[in-house]
């Protein structure tokens, strides 16, 4: 066991866990932020995606000991009122079916748009390929990302 001080969604949190504990389980079990989802545990499905200093990462495969003082942003902290352009676009396109993978999709999409505000179709596909949606909402996800990109350009 070791104590870590994490910067999560703009606040500082102390946790005492084994150093091998993945960020995902620290978030879910210890900090009780359960919006970040467990899907595969081996960085293959993207359900656990969070931002680490603004970059999309798979929290299921990141030991807590590797985080250091980097800023962690989860779906709960993406926006204060659930009004990030990507979240609004997701609602406007009525993307979710079961909804389980969507937090990860949104976190990955928002990181993409932060780096590349006007991605092409193929850039969207490449960037999003690590996020599986078992319900098959891929067509709407792409529409929502384009909508968010457009909203960003008008903001």
């Amino acid at each position, binding site marked *: *066991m070791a104590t870590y001080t994490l910067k999560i969604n703009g606040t500082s949190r102390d946790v005492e*866990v*084994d150093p*091998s504990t*993945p960020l995902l*389980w620290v978030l*879910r*079990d*210890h900090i*009780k*932020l*359960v*919006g*970040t*989802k*467990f*899907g*595969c*545990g*081996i*960085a*293959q*499905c*993207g*359900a656990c*995606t969070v931002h680490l200093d603004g970059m999309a990462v798979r929290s299921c495969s990141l030991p807590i000991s590797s985080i250091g003082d980097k800023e962690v942003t*989860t*779906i*709960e902290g*993406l926006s204060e*009122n*659930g009004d990030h352009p990507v*979240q609004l676009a*997701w*609602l406007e396109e*009525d993307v*979710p*079916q*079961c*909804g*389980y*993978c*969507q*937090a990860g999709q949104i976190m990955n999409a928002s990181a993409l748009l932060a780096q590349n505000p006007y991605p092409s179709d*193929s850039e*969207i*596909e*490449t960037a999003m*390929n*690590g*996020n*599986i949606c*078992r*319900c*098959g*909402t*891929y*067509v*709407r996800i*792409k529409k929502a990302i384009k909508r968010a990109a457009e909203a960003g350009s008008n903001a």
Partner: protein
Amino acid sequence: MTLVKTTFGRRAFIRNTGLASGGLVLGFSWLASCKDEAAMEAALQMPDSWFDINGFLKIGDNGLVTIMSPNPEIGQNVKTAMPMIVADELDVDWAKVLVEQAPLNTDIFTRQLAGGSQSIRQGWQGLRLAGATARQMLKQAAANAWQVPVGEIVTAAGMISHEGSGNSAGYGEMAAAAGALEVPEEVVLKEPGEFSIIGTDRKNVDGKKIVTGQPLFGLDVDRDNMRIAMVVHPPAFGQKFKSANLEEIKAMPGIQDAFHQVVYPEGAELQWSDGGHVPEMLVIVGNSTWEVMQAKRAVQAEWEADGPLESTEYHNTELAKLLEQAPDNPGRRDGNPEAAFARAATIVEKTYSAPYLAHNTMEPMNFFAHVTADKAELLGPIQTPEYLENTLAGILEMPKENIDIMMTRMGGGFGRRLYGSFAVEAAVISKRIQAPVKVVYSREDDMTQGTYRPSYMVRYRAGLDADGKLIAWHMRAAGTNDGGYFANRFPAGAVENYLSEGHTLRTEVTTGAWRAPTSNFMAGVENAFLDEVAEAAGKDPIAFRLELFDRSINDPVGDPEKNDYDPERYAGVLRLVRDKSNWDSSSPNAEKRGVAAYYCHNSYVAQVLDVEMNAGVPRADKIWCAVDCGIVINPLSARNQIEGGIVDGIGHATFSALTFEDGKPQQDNFDTYRLIRHSEAPREIETFFVDNGIDPTGLGEPSLPPVMGALANAMYRKAGKRYYHQPFVGSQEDRRIIG
């Protein structure tokens, strides 16, 4: 206007409780669409009192309405659609409706089950009655208050008015009085043309919570003093427990207990929902998921088998043998198929196969249970809560009244959560450790301990006469734990000499319903075969099918009542998709284009698919999909279901397979089991619904099965090669995409 008898028993009507219950508000339908949330929230302040009108809904003194969604939500969006139906007959403003997931309550609700695409079809009448009955009682309350005939009262968007007296009131003002009235014996239902909510686009009632990561799912459940448990099942199908290093496991950090546990004792009374259950398990209980996962990895167990363990090679060899044998009893026989094949000018014969598939819901199996000496509380993702209750009553030896089951929103179902042994495991563990517990499956547990889509083989033969007319049809199917065919589906009734028959191969590998059971194989291969037969007959594949439907309509073979389809509606979707896609087999775009049509879950779907091929991997460029599912409750979400089914069907037919060696699944996570990803999904899907006013039928499943055939047929046009065996590309190819 349709006058119908109400069917509510008196116990369904809990009257006028007049008190707000805690924790009621789970769904906010307006948040997703509202531009000015703060203003709307202010306008929608919670009422001081709620009045239960019937078990489906309650009305607040300020006119807010809470509608219960009775059925489990697995992503098929019944939690929005079912309350829409109630709200329409109640005649209330959708913006003033809150939606709650109902717990299992067999006194009030019937068929609280997510399966067979039946929630809307079977719930339709009851949901309408619930809304219409409440509206009638509100009108009666107003008539009593204003001393006017109830027949002169009208309602609109949550308001009651009487023109003659000039009186008007909101529902909230009449709710208390309405709740005290006798339930009317007859009520008037709206005609389809009078609907104001049904048939309109309404956003997912949980949308805002989903995109902000609120706790909605079983895996998100957290309670004071709750333990985490993981279970270890035999790694191979057909094995039993022998020994394990449980003492070592108990000594690991954060672990409270580790033990062997019988879940289903011999002689336990099983429900069909216990399909795929494992009678025993090893259990590891601890404080946190990661610690329990680590301990589970350290388990060293010995297992033993009574007989030989199965492999994919064994399954395929046995299925192939069965295709060589005539079963004792055919499913259907018309005319004289043998004589017709003997005189046929051309015979087309092809064999098709498909592998086992895992469900792979994104949320792995899990369940919360807290069982005490006299009470059991269960909470989690389950498609069959009523059956679960029956099983638990036997296994816990507890009366059903003492068992409470609540469904969470589910991270996918696809049939996997019809089989709730994971919830039974949670209850048995909680009882033993005398603490609340959440059982969590890892992805590997979830994928290797399934109720899989069976593996199938089928051989088709078609006989054509010299004019290219289809005169004989023979289908012989074989499947693991599933005979794999439907005796009376198309083209039964359209071919003079017809024979359909099937075999079932019993296996240790457990199987069950997987989105559109059996259809998820038959539709694709039947449409691929029809395409090849049409080609042999020198006919356009759509024109060829329409000729067969003409026969089935005008001069059906055999008893048309036996046919499991309506040829007019079937041909209707085919014509619609032909027109919408500008189908023309002589045009250049026909070189990349395939068609398929199928009937299942009471609905008709026809699809035209344009494909491109890159290094042998298909990608759908555009899909036109025509759907006849009767009245569409929520077109926005209905299109989502159709799109999802299409992506799901293409993905599994192209990439996915579960194979076995020595009884063990050879794929256990998404690095080896391939699911379709963004860059492989269709670029565009356009859906067209037939508007016919017929009562609604299935929607969650019917778009999946035929697309496997439309894809195979398009790939043939584009690549010049027929695809007989799924997955077309394969899950073995090493195209791993690291996230």
